């Protein structure tokens, strides 16, 4: 199978879906030249109308996507960094997710907001926050964050075909990661987790970059004789509760690993759900591993210390084992 980078796989998903459906188009700041290589080359193939550069106006661009979606198109709105969605927060929270319901089912808003999310490039607080936790709270917004090239392509294609608003998050720090990407068309369904490593002693659940911290931790734990199951949730909303609960039924131990500020994080949601619905399976308290609760610092040593590491995951897993 051909091996491709994460970012190339995303680019491929965009190109294929634009070829398949001419209602699909891309709009955002510098999507033609491609600030992130994920949109690179699309302008050459699809031209001015389907790859649209905009002024730096996140609120209007997001809303324009919504307006285009409710009038029959299938926009992909690229707003670059996750934190820039804060400027479009109103359009997403008040409009995108709500329109269908608020108007009694008269309309639908099939669009994708595509942004980078998370830290890892020493870019400072304004360019280094994970944002999925905010959008998970909003009803009727789907949120996905792939960890591999394969999932990146398959999930983005599903997102573009989805009839609902989807926040597609990609990770800058994973951009160069390589993996198998089939040449034949495939989709990865939204809402399905992927068990990355089967294990019987403890369930470790992550998403995006934290999947790698979890896998690394699993290796370290294996050396200690602990057999960890690692679940890559892939979709954050809706999320695959079933797979997690089944795993916990087996292991009796749960560690949630989430790159996010801790309070009201995805880790909080997963931990609360496991505690609520798998209580009788639990042999030890659930554990959360998240960012430290501080704004994102610039200095690489500090940034690294803020982010969840494999060592943190190991420590949390050990807590469930004593």
């Amino acid at each position, binding site marked *: 199978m051909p091996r491709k980078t994460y970012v190339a796989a995303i680019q491929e998903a965009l190109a294929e879906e634009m070829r398949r459906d001419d209602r699909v188009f891309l709009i955002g700041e510098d999507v033609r030249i491609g600030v992130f290589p994920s949109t690179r080359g699309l302008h050459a193939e699809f031209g001015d109308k389907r790859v649209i550069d*905009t002024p730096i106006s996140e609120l*209007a661009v997001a809303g324009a996507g919504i*307006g285009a979606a*409710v009038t029959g*198109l299938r926009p992909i709105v690229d707003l670059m960094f996750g934190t820039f969605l804060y400027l479009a927060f109103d359009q997403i929270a008040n409009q995108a997710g709500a329109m*269908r319901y608020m108007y*009694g089912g*008269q309309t639908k808003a099939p669009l994708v907001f595509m942004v980078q999310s998370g830290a890892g490039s020493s870019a400072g607080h304004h360019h280094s926050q994970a944002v999925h936790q905010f959008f998970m709270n909003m009803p009727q917004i*789907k949120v996905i964050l792939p960890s591999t090239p394969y999932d990146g392509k398959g999930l983005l294609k599903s997102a573009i075909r989805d009839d609902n608003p989807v926040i597609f998050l990609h990770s800058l720090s994973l951009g160069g990661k390589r993996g198998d990407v089939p040449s034949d068309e495939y989709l990865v369904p939204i809402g399905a987790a992927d068990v990355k490593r089967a294990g019987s002693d403890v369930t470790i659940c992550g998403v995006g970059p934290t999947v790698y911290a979890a896998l690394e931790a699993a290796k370290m734990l294996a050396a200690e004789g602990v057999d960890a199951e690692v679940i890559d949730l892939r979709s954050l909303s809706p999320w695959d509760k079933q797979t997690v609960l089944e795993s916990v039924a087996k292991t009796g131990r749960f560690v949630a690993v989430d790159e996010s500020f801790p309070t009201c994080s995805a880790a909080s949601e997963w931990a609360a759900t496991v505690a609520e619905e798998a209580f009788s399976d639990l042999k030890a308290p659930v554990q959360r591993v998240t960012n430290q609760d501080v704004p994102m610092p610039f200095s690489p040593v500090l940034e690294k210390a803020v982010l969840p590491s494999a060592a943190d995951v190991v420590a949390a897993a050990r807590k469930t084992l004593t």
Partner: protein
Amino acid sequence: MHHQDIPLEVVQDIYTRVLRIRRFEEEVGRLFRQGQLPGFVHLYIGEEAVAAGVCAALTDDDTIISTHRGHGHVIAKGGDLNRMMAELFGKATGYCKGKGGSMHIADFKIGMLGAIGIVGGGMPISVGAGLSAWYTDSERVSVCFFGDGAANEGSFHESLNLASTLTLPVIFVCENNQYGEFTPAHKAMNITDIADRAAGYGIPGLVVDGTDAFEMYRAAKTAVARARAGGGPTLIEAKTHRRGSHAEGEEAFLGGQTYRSDEEMAAAQAKDPLLLLHTYVSENDILPAAKLETLDAEITQAVADAVDAARDSPAPQLDSLFEDLWL
């Protein structure tokens, strides 16, 4: 005020739209004061010429987006009074099955893409509707109604600029009723004409007498023609007056505080768009008095019927909470 360039059936059409809005809104005001309507209600009385004039210049395909003060826009675009009234009562037979309410009425079948309760929140969406028209090489234009207050939101700036740079068929209709809630427009901006802001986006900006339905119609026609011809957006500032409260019941929640002078209110009354229209078509024998009376009686009856139907309609079933969700 004159209608020389406007065909008689259009005059009549505009008149009918204005009157339908007025009678509907008067009734809504009564119902609200009687405590029959839940939530907040913002009436369009005094501003009818804007929506009526503009929507008379649109086809059924063209789309509009509206605000918290949205009833007039829905009616002007051809909305169904029964489904509107039922929505205001929060009934299952309402436009949005009771899920939207006064600030969120939509009728996608007639190109009414929804009222938006967030000030300025509809503007970006209207740009998207225009983008859609441009993208599909459709003749459709997108109209966005918004207030003088909304013209100070960042969304105004970004939306006009975006529509301009992409040369989209969007018509921005600013209903300058002189107030954003209780703040006079002239305190919320240091300029006289919001239309002047159009220059900052390289698009035409027109000041129009929003109490004159014919002027509104003309301005809209020009802007529509320009948009359909690929000329891009226009900003139309309609100078108008809100005759009543910002939100119904404001006397109570303002605890006796006032913010408009009697003179101001009297001046607005003298420029009441229905009064002006009625006087014009009557004095110039354009529409016969009998016809006007029949029309009024018909509309009044239709509104009364809508109220009866709404009252008799069922409240939403609790099951409906989980309908209209993810597809």
